[in-house]
Structures are given as structure tokens and as C-alpha cells.
């Protein structure tokens, strides 16, 4: 089912750059989002964009000049502080050819601002334009990863795991920074081995020295998202029948012991390859203090 039509344009009257919203009571990772568009051509069952009716169409902001002006003044305010900025919060960064030119201009900003690390997060294979230009490690191409069985069941119209890993290898070999996002992780016991195997498959393929960071995030949902998932995909969403707990930020998550088990298993496997910055998305100190693969360097990164 194709829900999305051709992208339309609109004017963004608000801000283009915002601190990543994270969630109340969770450790923030000092990440900023920049949004040249909103909406996504993919159809992932769990995506929060699905419950914003207005986001089911892709809208590209026509006033990109305003976005770049805002970016310059934002970077001026950051002075020399390392700044991680990414376009993948409300859209897939690379899926749309209409954004190639804007992406290229955004990537060029790393020449002007050496403290800027800009991330393009995707589930696509559209990196050809990037492979034709000079790379640097502050331009980070990143992929959301899930085992192929999860891609098949929950990430409609996205590229396969192998395609994503192959692209990450090409990007790293070309000299780009690479980031990996294991998010959402479906923390069902039967899937743990698949996640560990995913780590093996990825880290034995992608050049390790080019991996800037890896994030992990357990599947979480709001009541609204659950209703939306059930309405869109019918009553076959057995993933929603695992035992979830309502957390203090109103989101439902797997129980703490299950999250700690998965994070430690996957994080330790990652660390067995190299000392890659690895952190958890939208988790609080109650989880962090049970994590044994963590190191001080990561916390330093998070609080930059």
C-alpha cells in the first residue's frame, strides 16, 4: 500500500533547528535536529509520524534559504562547541531525490564549521550523490538497523539489512563518518540472537575506524501510537502483546530488567569489536547505572 504521494512544498514558519526532543527524565545526548522536510516515503509500523495525519504527506520546506540563515546563526552561538546536528528526526534524510541539493549544501557546512558534525540518517540506499563528492568524518551517514525478520514484518518498502550494511561500508570506505542506530530494538527473547548476529554482520563489514557512534533504543510507544499501529495494520501486531510498562514519561517500554539485558548483551558485543561510542536513546539514569559496557568517554560525549 502506497500511502504517500509526491512531495509537496510549503513554507516553514517556525524554527528549522531544535534540540532533539528526547523525553522527560531521560538522559539527553546533546543532539540537535534540522528539518528541511517532514514526512517519509517508508511505511514502518512503529513510526511516530504515522499518528500525525498531516505528516502522511511529505512536505518539503520551500524556504531553505531561511534554514541556512538559521544554521549560520546557530553555529555562531555554538562558538567552538562540538555540535551534532541531524536531519533524520522527522524524515528519512536520504530517501528523497528532491532533497539531494539541500543535503549537499548541508554537508558543505562542515567545511565552514569544523566543530559541526552533520548526520544524515536513512533506511535507504541512496548514497550515490555522496559518493561523488569528497568526504570527511564530520559528515556522518547513518543507518537504522534491525534484523531482516523485523525489516520484513515492520519496515515496509525500506532496503534490506544487507543493502544497508553494504552502503555503510561504501560510505566508510569513501571516508565518511558512519553511525548506526539499533532503534527500535524489539526486546523479545527470541530476537536477541538476531540482534547479536546483526552486530557481528555489521561490524565485520563496516570500517570500524569510521564508525562515530552507535545508538540503541528499545521499542517504546505512547498510547496514541499503539492505537495508530492497530488501526493501520489490523490486529496482527503481536509485538504489542509483549509485557510493557508505563514509564514516568508516559511512554510504554519493556520492563527495566529486559532492557538492561538487551542493552548489555548488544553493547558488550559491540565493544568486543572496538571501543565505539555506544549509547542509549531515551533512557534515564535508572537504566544507565545498570549498564556495564559504558565508559566515561560516552558520558562525556552525551554531556557535551
Amino acid at each position, binding site marked *: 500500500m502506497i500511502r504517500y504521494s509526491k512531495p509537496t512544498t510549503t513554507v516553514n514558519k517556525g524554527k528549522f533547528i531544535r534540540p532533539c526532543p528526547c523525553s522527560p*527524565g531521560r538522559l539527553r545526548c546533546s543532539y540537535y535536529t534540522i528539518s528541511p522536510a517532514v514526512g517519509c516515503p517508508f511505511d514502518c509500523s512503529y513510526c511516530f509520524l504515522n499518528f500525525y495525519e498531516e505528516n502522511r504527506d511529505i512536505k518539503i520546506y520551500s524556504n531553505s534559504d531561511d534554514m541556512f540563515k538559521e544554521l549560520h546563526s546557530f553555529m555562531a552561538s555554538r562558538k567552538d562547541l562540538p555540535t551534532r546536528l541531524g536531519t533524520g528526526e522527522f524524515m528519512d534524510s536520504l530517501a528523497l531525490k528532491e532533497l539531494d541539493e539541500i543535503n549537499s549544501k548541508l554537508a558543505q557546512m562542515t567545511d565552514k564549521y569544523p566543530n559541526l558534525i552533520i548526520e544524515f540518517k536513512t533506511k535507504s540506499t541512496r548514497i550515490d550523490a555522496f559518493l561523488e563528492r569528497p568526504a570527511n568524518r564530520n559528515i556522518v551517514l547513518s543507518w537504522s538497523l534491525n534484523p531482516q525478520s523485523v525489516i520484513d514484518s515492520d519496515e515496509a518498502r525500506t532496503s534490506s539489512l544487507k543493502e544497508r550494511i553494504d552502503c555503510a561500508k561504501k560510505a566508510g570506505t569513501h571516508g565518511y563518518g558512519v553511525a548506526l542506530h539499533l532503534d527500535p530494538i524489539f526486546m523479545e527473547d527470541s530476537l536477541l540472537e538476531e540482534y547479536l548476529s546483526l552486530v557481528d554482520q555489521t561490524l565485520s563489514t563496516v570500517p570500524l575506524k569510521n564508525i562515530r557512534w552507535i545508538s540503541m533504543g528499545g521499542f517504546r510507544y505512547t*498510547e*496514541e501510537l499503539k*492505537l495508530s499501529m*492497530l*488501526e493501520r495494520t489490523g*490486529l*496482527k*501486531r*503481536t509485538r*504489542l*502483546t509483549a*509485557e510493557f*510498562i*508505563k*514509564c*514516568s514519561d508516559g511512554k510504554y517500554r519493556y*520492563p*527495566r*530488567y529486559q532492557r538492561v539485558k538487551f542493552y548489555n548483551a548488544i553493547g558488550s558485543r559491540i565493544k568486543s569489536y572496538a571501543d565505539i561510542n555506544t549509547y542509549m536513546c531515551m533512557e*534515564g*539514569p*535508572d537504566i544507565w547505572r545498570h549498564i556495564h559496557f559504558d565508559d566515561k568517554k560516552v558520558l562525556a560525549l552525551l554531556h557535551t
Partner: protein
Amino acid sequence: MINDYIRDNKCSESIKRLLALLPPDLLEAVEKVLTYSKPNPPTLKLLAETALDLKIKTGKNPLDEKFHELASSSGIKDAVDKLRELRFEKITSINTDLKKQISGLGLKNINIKFDTNLEESFIELSSRIYSPEDLNAVKEELASLIEGKGLDKIFKTYNDGK
């Protein structure tokens, strides 16, 4: 009948959406509940979502004759609690362990009831409480973590029984 309930109780949009998702057998069973009980909207919502989750999980209608017997004899709230224990088997088992652990501390009037808003705290507590002092230490820690939400329920009973 369900439409009358929605109208008379001014149900929220999320309850309406949830009820619209119920397959015919569950909807029929919920309507049967309304013939002998008057659940308030939050209870009806818990009933509907728990029943729906169990139906998706097992393929069977959990609102069977046994459920109706319990609901009509002990009340709908107790019946929904029982249903939720089935839905959250692992968590229920942890709660049971926690209750045993706390009762082993020799404190009186400790009463912990199944409450999804407190589950995280319960699980955390279960692995850390071995003495009355531990209970106090955990209280402070948890209060700072989750801004005290709901904790009074646990610790008021603890202090009362001290």
C-alpha cells in the same frame, strides 16, 4: 448499547478508537458486561484493551463465561485485575515475589496492588529490598528518579505499619 455508553459517559476519543478496534466477539462480550455492571470509562478502557491484547496474543476471547461469573459476583474491577494478571504474567509474578519479600521484613499493613504506573518501581525494588533500611533508601532514590509519582501509595502504608 456501546454507543449509548459512549454518549452517556462522554467517553474520550481514545476510548472510542479502542472500542472501534474490538472484533465482534469481544464487543459482544463487553456489551454483555454492561448488562450487569456499570464500569466507569477508565475501567471499561482497561477491560477493552486488556481483552484485546489477550485476544491478539492467544487468538481466544478472554471474556468467557468464567470471566462474566467473576465480574458479576466479585465486581468488574476485580475481574479486570484478574484479567490483567493473565495479560502481564511475568510482571505479576515479580510483584508476587516482591510482596513476599516485603512481608518477610516483618512490617505490617503493607499492601501493594497491581498498578501499571508503579511497575518499574516494583521491579527495581524487588531486587534491592532486604531490610526496612533498604526500603527507606530506595524510597529516596526512586522519589528523586520519578518525582515521587505514586510512591506515596507504597510508602505511606510502610510508614503506617512501622
